[in-house]
């Protein structure tokens, strides 16, 4: 089975975000980055499917500037077989349609049995790239997938619905699935894996010019910190311990918890 996993690099979750001078995006300069959370789970699922179903190939694909190499190398160290890096330093705002178009051009000739993506990115959070990509590749898809059964001819996938409900879908293969975090426990890269990764292929591609040129359908005009709607009593004024003591008192006298 040949499986392609799309992995995006995003700002570190713990990063303190600052807004840039023109108020159109965040200050990128001093950010550290990590792999988008659900994409890490998508990779894990791909590796497990390969192991379970007697081999094949796991190919990682990422779009972004040179810094995304760290995501790619980590994926190769965990067990992916090779990678495609669509190199673009263009920080212009591209929507999920353009991103999916670029990615579809990069992987369409691979003829994969399965394409896995994360269910949404932790930064832009459009939650669309995978589904649009499926449409562009002519593949059936399922989103928010929490279990995959590829033992038969087609696929059976368990989808998460709202409020603790689930649903199985039977579908044809090849297909595209967007993977939910928590589908399985993610493995660590071993030293052996890290050494082996050094010999694995990373193919660099330029983004398809026409796909890049596709008009953006949405444009960010301004970014800002959300307006607070609730009056929060901040306690301790930066002194965590003093805040804790005040909180105990408030829980007794104001909230009457005990």
């Amino acid at each position, binding site marked *: 089975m040949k499986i392609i996993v799309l992995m995006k690099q995003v700002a570190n979750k713990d990063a303190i975000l600052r807004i840039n001078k023109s108020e159109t995006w965040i200050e990128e300069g001093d950010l550290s980055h990590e792999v988008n959370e659900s994409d890490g789970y998508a990779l894990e699922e791909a590796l497990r499917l390969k192991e379970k179903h007697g081999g094949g190939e796991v190919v990682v694909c990422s779009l972004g500037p040179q810094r995304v190499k760290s995501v790619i190398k980590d994926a190769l160290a965990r067990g992916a077989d090779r990678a495609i890096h669509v190199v673009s330093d263009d920080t212009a705002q591209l929507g999920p349609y353009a991103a999916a178009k670029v990615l579809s051009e990069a992987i369409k000739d691979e003829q994969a049995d399965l394409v896995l993506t994360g269910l949404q990115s932790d930064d832009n*959070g*459009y939650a669309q790239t995978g589904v649009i990509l499926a449409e562009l590749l002519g593949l059936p898809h399922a*989103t928010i997938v929490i279990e995959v059964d590829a033992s038969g001819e087609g696929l059976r996938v368990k989808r998460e619905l709202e409020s603790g409900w*689930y649903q199985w879908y039977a579908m044809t293969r090849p297909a595209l699935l967007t993977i*939910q975090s928590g589908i399985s426990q993610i493995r660590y890269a071993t030293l052996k894996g890290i050494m082996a990764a050094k010999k694995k292929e990373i193919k660099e591609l330029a983004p398809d010019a026409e796909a890049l040129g596709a008009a953006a359908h949405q*444009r960010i*005009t301004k970014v800002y910190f959300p307006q607070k709607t609730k009056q929060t009593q901040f306690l301790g004024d930066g002194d965590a311990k003093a805040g804790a003591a005040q909180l105990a008192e408030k829980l007794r006298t104001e909230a009457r918890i005990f």
Partner: protein
Amino acid sequence: MPNGILVFAEHRGGAFNKTSFEAVAAAQQLGASLGQPVSAVVLGTDAALASQVATYKLDKVVSVENPKLSDYTPDGYADAMERAVRALDPQFVIMPHTYLVRDYAPKLAARFGKDLISDCVRASVADGAVTFSRRIFQGKIDADVVANGEPPVFATFQSGAYRADQAERGGEAAAVESLPVEVGEVRMQPEEPFQEVKQAVDLTKADTIIAIGRGIKGQEHIALAQQLADLLGGEIAASRPICDAGWLPIDRQIGSSGQTVTPKLYIALGISGAIQHLVGMKNSSTIVAVNKDPEAPIFDIADYGIVGDLFEVIPVLTEEIKKLKG
């Protein structure tokens, strides 16, 4: 000329989703500001369901019909909606940002060569132009977004962004129009939806919940929060990543894919406050947030906040409560 606003009313097995009527409220407000008529679409096998939506103040309700629409599938819905949108030629298509819409609407938009303005929390109109606001970076930042290019503009609204009870009812029922459509090959078959076996702990009954997030750093630190919970006679709960990592069982997860709780006291320790977490706890009576990031979205719904390290806060808080309890 494209005209009007089309709102997608979602149902599962004949029951409408509350967020559908939130979307109706959003569409009505947009329609009023732009001076454009608002119609609703309902997908199904016949017009029976459409009449339920017709009680709202709408230009009309279009019942988009095909036998293949008896159960939801992304292939079936994308085909049917594509045909409905092409036939009705609206300027805006408004949808609730539910799991079902997330599943098929990007495919629908792609048929028009575009993407969705997804998960909006507001829309405002100035000089006839619409600005949509989205929450990005997991709720930490807002972005104002304008649509480019030809209509239709596809937008989805976050659950809770508008109130369903703000959706205006009409004096008399809106006209229901049947629109039979063709639906091509459907490549997936749904089985019956189900819930996992009964949860071992029912957090909905707890008066006090101590919830931990990724800020707790390691499974070995959970004992610290557990002590506080025991002292207050409360239950321990968590954000999704804690359960994903297997540090706590999934029946202790709070949020859109976990439990929804309304305890007297909810203490969030090292939880950032992503919307999928907030929907599960925001109606708690008293909310306390401890987070080292002063801009963490969780503070937006907290009654009491401490900006600081939870590893400093918890021991002191536990000691002080012990003292006060005597």
